[in-house]
């Protein structure tokens, strides 16, 4: 008799998960099919399964497929990282870049262009990735000094300070070097189109590792959200749990922004929507956020191809125009959910 409420709840959540997964598949197919050249579904299928070298097959395999894959990758990574960072800082305003990851990646890329004259995208994304790691370790260390370990408040403040410092340095560098500015402005705007497909297998392991760590962090984050005392009384060590979460945020955000630019907005709004569907259980919230992130990013990308046909609008601006008003409406309609 007791199993009834628990079981029903779980079935309900599984159904939502299934729905989101189907929706993700839907936008994936749509993203391959829709564009300046509209490719019907049978065409998509034949291009993927037995390509014959037609122009249509070429568009699918060398343009649409990588673009869609990058969208799925970055959307999932940023959505999950956003849910993690909001859970760990207990701050609804936290985005995956809060812990210095985004500015760290940007600073390292700009610096590598400025000092070493790196011009190859495939080289400077590694600088970006390394910068993300260093910045996030610095924030975690600064947020933990003075005893007592990292708390939500010190993490957020340390993140804001480090990000501001790096942003100031970036502004200085790009004003001295137009080549660096040129890379930086496109990186800031964010893009999933026109990325080199060879990058995909290179960042994929990091994203997969990040996703795995995020899911492994979910039970710990659940008990942490009851307060540090309760978490400890349930046998959870607070420091390692935070460290695991931050490692995951860094891997996910670092790989996503290094390749696709500063699209951290996805990670800011998606968890709020996911939370409305899942409630505060991170074991569900995290997968929901990941799928919703992919849906939002690909959806915005597709919308950008439709509104400006035969040209297209970049995904960054579409995200702002679709996601921004949606976020504000959400904030206005509901009593703000305090974490």
């Amino acid at each position, binding site marked *: 008799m*007791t*199993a009834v409420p628990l079981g029903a709840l779980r079935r309900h959540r599984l159904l939502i998960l299934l729905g989101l997964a189907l929706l993700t598949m839907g936008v994936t197919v749509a993203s391959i099919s829709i564009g300046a050249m509209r490719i019907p579904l049978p065409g998509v299928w034949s291009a993927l399964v037995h390509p014959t070298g037609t122009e249509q097959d070429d568009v699918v395999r060398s343009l649409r497929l990588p673009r869609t894959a990058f969208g799925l990758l970055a959307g999932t990574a940023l959505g999950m990282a956003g849910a993690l960072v909001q859970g760990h800082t207990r701050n609804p305003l936290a985005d995956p870049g809060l812990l210095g990851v985004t500015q760290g990646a940007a600073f390292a890329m700009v610096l590598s262009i400025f000092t070493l004259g790196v011009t190859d995208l495939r080289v400077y994304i590694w600088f970006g990735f390394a910068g993300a790691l260093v910045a996030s370790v610095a924030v975690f260390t600064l947020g933990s000094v003075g005893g007592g370990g990292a708390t939500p408040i010190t993490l957020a403040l340390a993140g804001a300070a480090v990000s501001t410092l790096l942003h100031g340095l970036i502004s200085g560098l790009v004003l001295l070097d137009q080549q660096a500015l040129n890379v930086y402005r496109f990186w800031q705007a964010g893009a999933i189109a026109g990325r080199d497909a060879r990058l995909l297998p290179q960042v994929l392991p990091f994203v997969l590792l990040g996703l795995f760590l995020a899911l492994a962090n979910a039970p710990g984050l659940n008990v942490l959200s009851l307060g540090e*005392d309760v978490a400890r*009384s349930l046998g959870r060590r607070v420091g390692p749990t935070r460290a695991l979460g931050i490692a995951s945020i860094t891997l996910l955000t670092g790989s996503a922004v290094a390749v696709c630019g500063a699209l951290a907005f996805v990670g800011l709004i998606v968890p709020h929507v996911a939370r409305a569907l899942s409630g505060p259980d991170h074991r569900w919230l995290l997968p929901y956020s990941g799928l919703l992130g992919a849906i939002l990013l690909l959806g915005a990308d597709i919308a950008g191809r439709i509104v400006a046909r035969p040209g297209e609008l970049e995904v960054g601006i579409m995200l702002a125009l679709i996601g921004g008003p949606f976020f504000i409406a959400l904030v206005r309609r509901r009593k703000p959910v305090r974490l």
Partner: protein
Amino acid sequence: MASLTARDLRLGYGDRIVVDGLSLDLGDAGVTAIIGPNGCGKSTLLRALGRLLKPHAGRVLLDGDDIAKVPTREVAKRLAILPQAPQAPEGLTVADLVTRGRHPHQSWYRQWSSSDEGAVADALAKTGLLELADRPLDELSGGQRQRAWISMALAQDTGLLLLDEPTTFLDLAHQIEVLELIRRLHADHGRTVVMVLHDLNLAARYADRLVAMRDGRVAASGAPAEVLTVELLAEVFGLDAKIITDPVSGGPLVVPLGGARSATARPPDGS
């Protein structure tokens, strides 16, 4: 039955020492209530007993093992501690909360076993919350919410239960309800309970044993009738009171005599 012993504890926050040289044996005591004036170190002691606070010196022994050396997850299977006025995220349901009490028994490959299911159902049943299982915590009354938190600690399925002021913010009827529940936990299920309690008369009625604290030291400890004396109340609380026999339980009942003469004896503030 689980035993918990404190040896020469020195506790504090930073440079401020709250408890010094405290030893206490809580083995096989049934229900123990720690009483004392504000700021005497009751909650600090409880947090140290539940390894939430690391002692500056001294040891806490859980069944003979130094609690600081036992892996925290192992401790969590033997001892549950519920802090004062815990906070839950918005929208969390009662069932979700109680389920989280199973955390120490779960691992990444074993998320939800039949024993988890059983323990949660059992904890909900004991606290009478089965009907409210899928209600969000923020929609419940204060008494129901407190029962839900106790239910979470019960789902942890430990022999020892440490509770910090489980009756704060509750009206008298709900206080009785929670304390009756605690009483049953010991009587029917053999749990050992240690709680910090403010109300002396409720402590006397529901605890097998009282520990009276003053300025970070144990002033007296023993059965309620031994501890609650006119002299002790004057010494520990600076309270002028009469002790009569509780007409319901036959135990001691404290009747204060027109106010405290506490101007000189008031302990330092803060907790």
